[in-house]
């Protein structure tokens, strides 16, 4: 041993090299020492900006190597039921669900695997969580809650609305809750509501005929996955008949031509859901992780639709919104 450490340049270099190699070996690339976790992603209508936010944040984690498997119901409630029936939840460390319907369905079946929900408008009213601070069950997540009054006031700045159409999927419990919220502000703002329920693709044309013949002042779209998935067809028809549309989901404005929306940044929402997921994967119980909402709502305006409908937006709204031309 003493011979080994006898001063000598060559041996010193060798020792240093060995030490360096040992250090490098210890500092392994991220992921290699990360714990592997499996997450099932249950989607109702395919990947949205929310999922992108969720996945980007999850994959950037330094603690976990998360392997995700996506199950897409393709807007079909039957398919959703089938996915959940065949899902072996025990194989996963966490279940991610999109929307109220998927979350409620998952909760019915899965009791002992944590569930992280995303894009659920009214998680308390939907019976998903007991309170924002604690769910008192195996669920936590991020909500895209928007006060209906705020959403209505947005469009009341530019339009006088006496007859408002409410298009919703009558199979989605979240839409019914939002309908109840609209009814509460009805008296305050002095307008009437015409319910226009749709339940499947076949019912859309008839619903649109109803909306057009009713000579509505505007149509309101709640946060509804089915409506969102078919927004292109619905909004195009409304624009053709010069009926303004108000949305909560920004994509309906940016991609489908709805007039205005007031809602959260969905990518940011996905990031919040991912933060909750990482806390749960780290060992916390879902009931210990409070549900989150975004800090700010954003306004989106489609100027092309506004021009078509002959609506002039005031300068302050244009300057402070994301304007799509």
């Amino acid at each position, binding site marked *: 041993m003493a011979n080994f450490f006898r001063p000598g340049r060559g041996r010193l270099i060798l020792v240093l090299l060995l030490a360096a190699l040992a250090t490098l070996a210890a500092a392994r690339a991220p992921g290699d020492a990360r714990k592997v976790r499996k997450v099932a992603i249950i989607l109702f209508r395919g990947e949205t900006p929310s999922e992108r936010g969720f996945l980007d944040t999850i994959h950037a984690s330094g603690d976990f190597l998360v392997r995700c498997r996506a199950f897409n119901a393709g807007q079909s409630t039957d398919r959703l039921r089938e996915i959940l029936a065949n899902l072996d939840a025990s194989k996963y460390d966490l279940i991610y669900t999109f929307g109220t319907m998927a979350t409620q369905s998952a909760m019915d079946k899965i009791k002992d695997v944590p569930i992280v929900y995303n894009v659920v408008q009214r998680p308390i009213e939907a019976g998903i969580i007991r309170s924002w601070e604690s769910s008192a069950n195996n669920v936590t997540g991020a909500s895209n809650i928007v006060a209906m009054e705020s959403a209505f006031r*947005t469009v009341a700045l530019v339009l006088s609305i006496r007859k408002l159409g409410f298009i919703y999927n009558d199979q989605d419990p979240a839409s019914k809750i939002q309908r109840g919220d609209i009814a509460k502000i009805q008296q305050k703002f002095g307008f009437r509501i015409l319910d226009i329920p749709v339940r499947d693709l076949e019912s859309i044309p008839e619903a649109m005929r109803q909306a057009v013949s009713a000579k509505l002042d505007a149509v309101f779209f709640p946060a509804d996955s089915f409506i969102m998935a078919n927004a292109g067809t619905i909004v195009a028809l409304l624009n053709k008949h010069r009926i303004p549309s108000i949305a909560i989901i920004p994509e309906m404005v940016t991609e489908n031509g709805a007039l205005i929306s007031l809602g959260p940044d969905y990518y940011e929402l996905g990031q919040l859901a991912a933060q909750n997921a990482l806390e749960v994967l780290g060992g916390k119980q879902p009931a210990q992780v409070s549900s989150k909402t975004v800090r700010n709502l954003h306004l989106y305006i489609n100027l092309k639709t506004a021009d078509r409908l002959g609506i002039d937006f*005031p*300068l302050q709204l244009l300057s*402070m919104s994301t304007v799509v031309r």
Partner: protein
Amino acid sequence: MTETGLFSISSTETLMILRGFIPTVMVVAIGVLVGKLDDSRHQSTLTKLIDYVFLPCLVFTAIHRHPFDLNEVLQIAVAVTVMVCLSTVAALCLMRDRPGAAGWNHLAIIFMSSGNLLLPLAYVLFGSEGLVKGIYFHLCVLLLFHTLGAYLVKGKSDLRSFFRIPFLYPMALGIAAASLPLPGSENLVELAWLTEKGIHIAGLGALPLLLINFGYPLGLIELSALRQGLAGGALRIVGGPLLAFAVIWLYRQVGWLSMERGYDILVFVDRRTTEALLILGASLPSSHHALRMEAGGGLVASQAESATLLVSVLGGMFTVITVLFLVDAYVFQG
């Protein structure tokens, strides 16, 4: 916010400002033409129509559709009072009266055209929210005019004249209508709405009439008198917005118009609209009221005061649009 540059001609905000400002200037120019065609003999017809029919309709429909917020009124009232008081001090210190002028020129410097110009501009640029704030602004200016303004020139305030302003009462009615619950009967609601629709249409008619009323007497003022009004006019259109920016800065510091975005962006938008309206109002040219008070029902007053008005109008065409761009850059997008 749009992707194109802030002062690019194709940016949405620039276009909005131009589309709002230039047409109002055009209509004022038409008012000048109407005055010249009419030999400027019948402004009282215009004024009566506006004061007794159209402006009350505009005020009623704007106010009753907007939830009443005392805070909002106070913010505007305090800002207007501060600006008018400081303008008064500046005018008294910087502008010497002509002998026997008894402070008339000061009125043209202190008080801005908060009715004829601000209301249409506020509506066109800032929508119905801007119009409501403009109405509160106008009311405060009128109150100060009939108190402080009257005191400056007559030695005593004239509050009774203030209470004879016709639109005060529809305004009170509008506030009451906004605050009371809707009647239960649907037929009654329908009838009220249809009646209100007629009043609303009449109210919209006030917008161009106000602008025409503003332009009507301008054709009488001789351009040769411009020099006399240079200092006063410049003080009005440059000093005004500077004061307003200072007041806004103060409001932000004390938290009265917080910059906190908060959850509901509409609250934030509302605060910024208040700021924008205050700045716009403060930057407008001189008011007719000053001249009408002196002229005692005649058309225009003496040359110096008229010159101040004219200078503020001509200069205001450049300063007001500059102020609008600044408002967009530093208030809405800042």
